[in-house]
């Protein structure tokens, strides 16, 4: 019972997180490609309720930013003019969930651009880019995990059900794939595919690469379940009234693998999102101008950025709540000693 409540909690949290990213257009004040080259690398802007004169405003506001006298890259707030933060504004055009064309955004401002998380080298709003980038990264992780699980089930079920040479071959192959250091394998595969491709092709390419590398472990787990399910009496009984292999697999055996598959999905999705981030960060993934969490971090490879523009690191943190959600889900599914939950006290202390 406790387990089911915990499960619902994690699922809800994940759904909320994914929902925010899915509706990136609404939550983001600007189009992620919108540039402002005059004012690059703006630091995050603060929201105030009390202005420089000590007056309390009803509506939250922010200050426009101007260059500090005598400096090239130091900015300060021009406290003379408070600019109100507006909610449910009309802004850039986008399609909600890819379907509904609209122009409504959660918040925005009129005369000046507001950058809650700062802006990058081209003056593009980081918050917007993070939200839109999440769509790509998460989708890559989900699709990659889907591909891996599909391959894993295919291989594992074939090996487990038919046995014989198929089993031997696939399991040797799985051992090989599982034995190689995962990231090196990923890179090796990526290495030989075309490097400079369009963002769309790159996206599907890395899904293919990520999905093709990680199938070994799910395959082994599925094989184990199929092996034991195959020997069940109800399977024998069904064979006894003439069921074909296909029927047995479909109706009796594969449903037994559902819990393994779900647990693996919860573990693989965050790993694959991370893989996309790593590849894109290093320039092997989705290229500019399409934002992904990975290539948003690419600028951090420059020392100057590391030193002066710390807000360019924030996209890295975007994945953390998702990791938390998926890991929590995985451990509830797996019934491990969950995150922070310790059930029993041991008798060691009573001796």
């Amino acid at each position, binding site marked *: 019972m406790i387990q089911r409540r915990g499960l619902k909690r994690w699922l809800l949290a994940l759904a909320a997180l994914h929902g925010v990213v899915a509706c990136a257009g609404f939550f983001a004040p600007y189009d992620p490609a919108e540039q402002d080259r005059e004012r690059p690398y703006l630091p995050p802007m603060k929201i105030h309720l009390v202005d420089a004169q000590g007056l309390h405003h009803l509506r939250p506001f922010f200050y426009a930013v101007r260059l500090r006298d005598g400096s090239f890259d130091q900015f300060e707030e021009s406290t003379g003019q408070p600019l109100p933060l507006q909610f449910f504004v009309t802004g850039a055009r986008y399609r909600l969930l890819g379907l509904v064309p609209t122009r409504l955004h959660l918040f925005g401002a009129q005369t000046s651009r507001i950058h809650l998380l700062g802006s990058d080298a081209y003056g593009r709003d980081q918050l917007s880019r993070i939200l839109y980038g999440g769509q790509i990264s998460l989708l890559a992780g989900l699709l990659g995990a889907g591909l891996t699980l599909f391959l894993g089930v295919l291989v594992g079920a074939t090996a487990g059900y038919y046995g014989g040479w198929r089993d031997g071959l696939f399991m040797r192959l799985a051992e090989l794939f599982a034995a190689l250091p995962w990231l090196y394998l990923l890179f090796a595969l990526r290495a030989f595919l075309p490097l400079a491709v369009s963002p769309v092709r790159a996206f599907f390419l890395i899904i293919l690469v990520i999905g093709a590398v990680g199938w070994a472990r799910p395959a082994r787990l599925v094989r184990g379940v199929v092996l034991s399910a195959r020997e*069940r009496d109800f399977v024998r*009984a069904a064979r006894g*009234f003439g069921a074909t292999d296909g029927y047995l697999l479909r109706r*009796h055996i594969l*449903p037994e693998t559902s819990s393994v598959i779900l647990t693996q999905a919860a573990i693989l999705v965050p790993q694959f999102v991370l893989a996309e981030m790593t590849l894109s960060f290093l320039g092997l993934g989705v290229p500019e101008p399409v934002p992904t969490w990975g290539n948003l971090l690419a600028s951090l490879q420059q020392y100057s950025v590391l030193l002066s523009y710390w807000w360019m690191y924030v996209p890295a943190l975007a994945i953390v709540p998702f990791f938390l959600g998926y890991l929590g889900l995985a451990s509830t599914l797996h019934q491990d000693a969950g995150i922070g939950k310790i059930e029993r006290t041991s008798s060691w202390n009573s001796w």
Partner: protein
Amino acid sequence: MEELLKVENLEKHYENTGVLGTKKEVAALRGVSFSISARSTLALVGESGSGKSTLAFCIACLERPTSGSIIFRGEEIAARPEEEQRTVRPKIQLVFQDPTRSLNPRFSALEIVSEPLLVQGQCSKREREDKARALLAQVGIPQQKALHKADEFSGGQRQRLAIARALALEPKLLILDEALSALDCSVQAQISNLLLELQSLLGLTYLFITHDLAMAGHLADEIAVMEQGKIVELGPVEKVLRSPEQKVTQRLIMATPRLTDAADGLVVA
């Protein structure tokens, strides 16, 4: 009466590969021969490991014997290829020992009982459901429970479901592999009575595998005693139980808990 099933010199060898690849041959059946008349019940008794289940699986075409023949309704079936066996299988059905394992817990009662019809693909969905409901009624499962999942039934009810499922394809021979052993005593009585009813109603032939001599005495016309892959004693049930010839039969009889009727010393179920 006609012979429904005749088994001649059936042998089944298994190969077990040891740790370092050494192959060991295990002989589960070493030349078994017997026959069952139509509409009668043959009880097959023996200790664990005597080969009873292997024999059952071979007759039900779930395993292939290494040599020997199985003649069902005058036709040899053991040597047939897989597809042809599929046409024979409906007529020989198996009821397993443990209904918790032989029924898929995720299936509903209706699904379980109609599964053989679904697999054989001969009826429409409507017909399947009607037949399944009729079968449920025949084994005494109330109609309201038709859509309940298998794990919501008691042990005895599950075994009824298993029997109903076995009857779905209108078999001629029903092999009951320790079908009552996992049930409580009182439930055993109910189910065995159901079996007797069904036998006379549908003209079934039973091969009743058990280690429980009392049950064998209650249900069977003939008894065959197995030991280490061979049949060592075969005959009408009363004769075998009263004057057993083989040591193993005597051992089995001695081991059976008896509520003796002082008059004739027969084991009473």
